Structures are given as structure tokens and as C-alpha cells.
């Protein structure tokens, strides 16, 4: 990226015309150092499209990293195609398991119960309103028994989507705020983020597994008895070292990419959800309440933290390490939503 602009906070190089840092969302002031953190005003469509583009790019990187690792491992053992096909098979197995049982596992981990009428009339109405606004089929609606306020969406495609919310969320949000939250989840469903999440998680898992296998094999079973073929010698040693370094670094890098994808998708869902309700302030006010009152859910664990509207395990402030967050800081999300409504900070 020639002529880029380095972020004063985290050092990431951004495009020259960037209005805020791509990584930590630090806004770039136009002249001098303005102490005011202000999200740039972005129209819904543009915000949504740029986040989608970014997350696609990151996805490609993740794929490339995975197959690159497979190729290097293959090279060390003498055959690149073999490494690539090993990677492919590994991915196919993991992905199909996740694809076919992912959403039911997630729903049962968090103890979500399906609801179809009666006591949650308002919730069902709001979901139906948003399904109409998004032009999607009606998802199944689940409720989790918890004081914390949170929500997530699951399901591979819009036709079999599920949206789950906690009872704490239902009791403490007003109708407009609930609408904002449901619209955010509906946006995840519409852009198939749930499927993206599954794919990203599987890739990260596969990279970790591949690295693990490789390292274990290299350090514990590296007897001379293993036939190395004629390709042995210096070249192979270099590739072995490269492989080790990659295997050590790849899982971490993959994790960072996954987090980054997750953050872009969250921003996208905020913007797209606001387009459904035409009322960004509903979600902004809901996020404010959630960050004040807590977002814990039943059965919370690190494997599913990125699915929720607000991370149930950690609260991200504007100053927490952006690199490892599943979500953008709630504060900045609220700022962006308010900017969409034409309000400054």
C-alpha cells in the first residue's frame, strides 16, 4: 500500500484517504491532533459494502494461509500435491461436520428454547417485522433464560435460520431497541454471516490441527528411519525450518484474521440492520443498555463468543487491544450508528 497512512495508535498502515484506522478504528483527524474521537459519517449502503469487501479479502487470506501451510508441509515431506490434498481432506471433514450440525450444537450449548407463540408475542412480532423488512423467510425464534442481555443468529442459510435472545434482553429493552437488535441479527442472516462464521472457525481449527500434526511429527518422530527420498539436503532443511516457523505462527495469524473478519461483519450487520429499521438510534440505545447491564449468557464459552451481538465474555472498550477482539468496541459501534442518524458525538 504505497503512500499509506500509519495509524498513530497501533501503527497499522491504512490507505491514504482512510478516515479511520482499519484495525483499531482510531479516527484520523484531518488537521492537527483533535482529541475528539468521532466516527466518520457513512451512508448505510457504502458502510455495508466496504465492510463486506474487506471481510471477503480477509477470507481469501485465511484460505491462502491454510493451503500455503499445507503446501509447505507437503514440500517438507517431499510432495507438495500430497500436502495440499491432505489440507483439502482435513478441511472437507471438518467443514461438513460443522455445516451439518453447527447450528443445533450452538443452540443447545446455550440452552436456547424454541418459542412459537403466547408469552413472547412481542418478540415474534418484531422478528416478523424485520423478516419483512429484509425480505427473508421467517426464522425460528429461540429464547435463553438469562439475566444478561444478548442475542445471536445461527443457521446455514436464510431458509433455516434461527435467532436467539435472552430473557434479560426482552425484559429490559423497549420495542424500538428490540427491533434494532433483531434487525442486526437479521442482517447476519441475510448476508450469511452465520455460514461465514462456520467457515472461518473451521479454517482456524484446521490450521491449528495441521500445525500441530506437523510439529509433533517433526519433533517426536523424526527418526532417520523415515525415508526422505532423494530430495534431501539443504533445500529440505530450509523448508523444514520454514515449515516449523509457519506452523508456530500460522495458528496465531489465523486467529487474528478470524477476529478481523468477525469485526467487519459486526459493523456490516449494524449498518445493514439500520437500513432495515431506518432507525440506527434504536440499536445504538440497545447497545448502550447492554454495555451498562452486562451481556452474560448461559453456557458461555470461547468457541461461540463471536456469534453474539455483544461479546458475552469480554467488554471491549475503545482502548482494549483491537487486534484480538471479536467485536469492535461497543462505544465506537454506537458512535457510528449515531453518525448514520446524522448525529455527531
Amino acid at each position, binding site marked *: 500500500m504505497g503512500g499509506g497512512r500509519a495509524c498513530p495508535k497501533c501503527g497499522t498502515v491504512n490507505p491514504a484517504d482512510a478516515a479511520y484506522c482499519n484495525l483499531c478504528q482510531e479516527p484520523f483527524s484531518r488537521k492537527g491532533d483533535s482529541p475528539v474521537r468521532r466516527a466518520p459519517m457513512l451512508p448505510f449502503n457504502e458502510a455495508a459494502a466496504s465492510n463486506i469487501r474487506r471481510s471477503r479479502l480477509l477470507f481469501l487470506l485465511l484460505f491462502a494461509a491454510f493451503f500455503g501451510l499445507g503446501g509447505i508441509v507437503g514440500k517438507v515431506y517431499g510432495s507438495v500435491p500430497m500436502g495440499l490434498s491432505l489440507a483439502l481432506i482435513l478441511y472437507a471433514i471438518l467443514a461438513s461436520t460443522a455445516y451439518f450440525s453447527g447450528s443445533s450444537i450452538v443452540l443447545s450449548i446455550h440452552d436456547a428454547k424454541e418459542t412459537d407463540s403466547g408469552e413472547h408475542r412481542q418478540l415474534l*412480532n418484531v422478528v416478523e*417485522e424485520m423478516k419483512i423488512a429484509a425480505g427473508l423467510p421467517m426464522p425460528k425464534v429461540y429464547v435463553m433464560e438469562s439475566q444478561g442481555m444478548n442475542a445471536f443468529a445461527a443457521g446455514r442459510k436464510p431458509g433455516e435460520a434461527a435467532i436467539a435472545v435472552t430473557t434479560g434482553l426482552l425484559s429490559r429493552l423497549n420495542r424500538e431497541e428490540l427491533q434494532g437488535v433483531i434487525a442486526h441479527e437479521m442482517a447476519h442472516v441475510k448476508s450469511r454471516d452465520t455460514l461465514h462464521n462456520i467457515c472461518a472457525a473451521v479454517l482456524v481449527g484446521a490450521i491449528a490441527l495441521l500445525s500441530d500434526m506437523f510439529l509433533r511429527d517433526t519433533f517426536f518422530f523424526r527418526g532417520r528411519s523415515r525415508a526422505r527420498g532423494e530430495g534431501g539436503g539443504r533445500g529440505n532443511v530450509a523448508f523444514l525450518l520454514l515449515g516449523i516457523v509457519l506452523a508456530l505462527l500460522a495458528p496465531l495469524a489465523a486467529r487474528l484474521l478470524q477476529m478481523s473478519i468477525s469485526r467487519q461483519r459486526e459493523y456490516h450487520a449494524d449498518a445493514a440492520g439500520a437500513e432495515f429499521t*431506518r432507525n440506527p438510534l434504536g440499536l445504538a440505545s440497545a447497545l448502550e443498555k447492554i454495555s451498562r447491564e452486562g451481556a452474560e449468557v448461559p453456557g458461555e464459552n470461547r468457541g461461540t463468543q463471536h456469534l453474539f451481538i455483544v461479546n458475552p465474555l469480554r467488554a471491549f472498550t475503545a482502548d482494549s487491544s483491537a487486534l484480538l477482539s471479536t467485536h469492535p468496541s461497543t462505544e465506537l459501534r454506537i458512535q457510528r450508528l449515531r453518525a448514520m442518524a446524522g448525529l455527531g458525538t
Partner: protein
Amino acid sequence: MQWIPAILAIAIVAWFVGTYNRLVRLRNQIQNAWHQIEVQLKRRHDLIPNLVEVVKDYMSYEQETLARVVEARGAAVSARGTAAQAKAENALTESLKSLFAVVENYPDLKANQNVASLQEELTGTENKISFARQYYNDSVMTFNNTIQSIPSNVIASVFDFRPSEYFEAGEEAKAVPKADLR
């Protein structure tokens, strides 16, 4: 190099088919969106008699407001044609708003479980109507943009795809901006 024209021809045909199918899909999306609006309007018509039934015993002094709702509903049910229908439905929306404003003055009415659930149903239906309308208008915009822009306008004119009409909101609805929540 004889295969270059062949590839070019295939690409053109593929674009042609793709664009045509896209236009058909968008047109059907508009029809479906229109159908959604009608479903919700019908649902509102069905809910109102229940509401009137529950409310009328409490509201002996407000017979006029009630009568207006019943009348507006009758007009909306019998309205024919898009423009007339839109106008009647907007009038019905207004009459319901004034009814709910009056309900606020009757604490025991507000406390009534039936009224509360009917009110939620009607609010939900109102919202569904407006979101269905929004989706309809968005679909119309996408469709109209597509058939009017180059190059897809060529196919649109060959197959006679006409621009669709927007569903206009009532004057009152346009004038109300969303309030700041805090």
C-alpha cells in the same frame, strides 16, 4: 485464434440470459412484496372488530372515536385501486392512532390484558405494513434502476419491462421523523 469470436459469443449470450433472469427475479420480488403488504392490511382489517368489541364497554364517552375507526375500516375494506386503497389505509392508520391516544386516558382499559395484547398485535401489524411498504419501495427502486441503466436497459426495452410504481405513504406519515431516544 478462431475461438475468440466463439468465446465472445458465449459471453454475450450468458450476459443476456443472466440479465433477463435478473429482471424477471426483480419483477417477481416486487409482486411478492406487494402481496406481503396486502396480507398485513388484511390482518389489520381482521383485528379491528376484536379491538372495538373489547374497548367499547369501557369507552362510553368516546363513541365518536370508535365510530371513526369502524368507518375508516369499512372504507379501507371496500376501497378498490391502488391509489384509493393507499388513501383509505392511511386514513385508517390515523384513526387508530387517535384511538390509542384516547386509550392512554383510561387506566383500567390499559391494564386490561386483552387490550394490551390487541394493542401489541395492532402495533406489530402497523409496523409490518410499513416495513412491507419499505421493502416494496426498495424493490421497485432496484428494479427501476436496473431497467433504466445501461446496458440492461436494452434487454428491458426488448422484452418490455416497464418501470413499477412506488407505494406512497400518507402525508402525515411522511412528516413524522423518528424521535431521539434519549
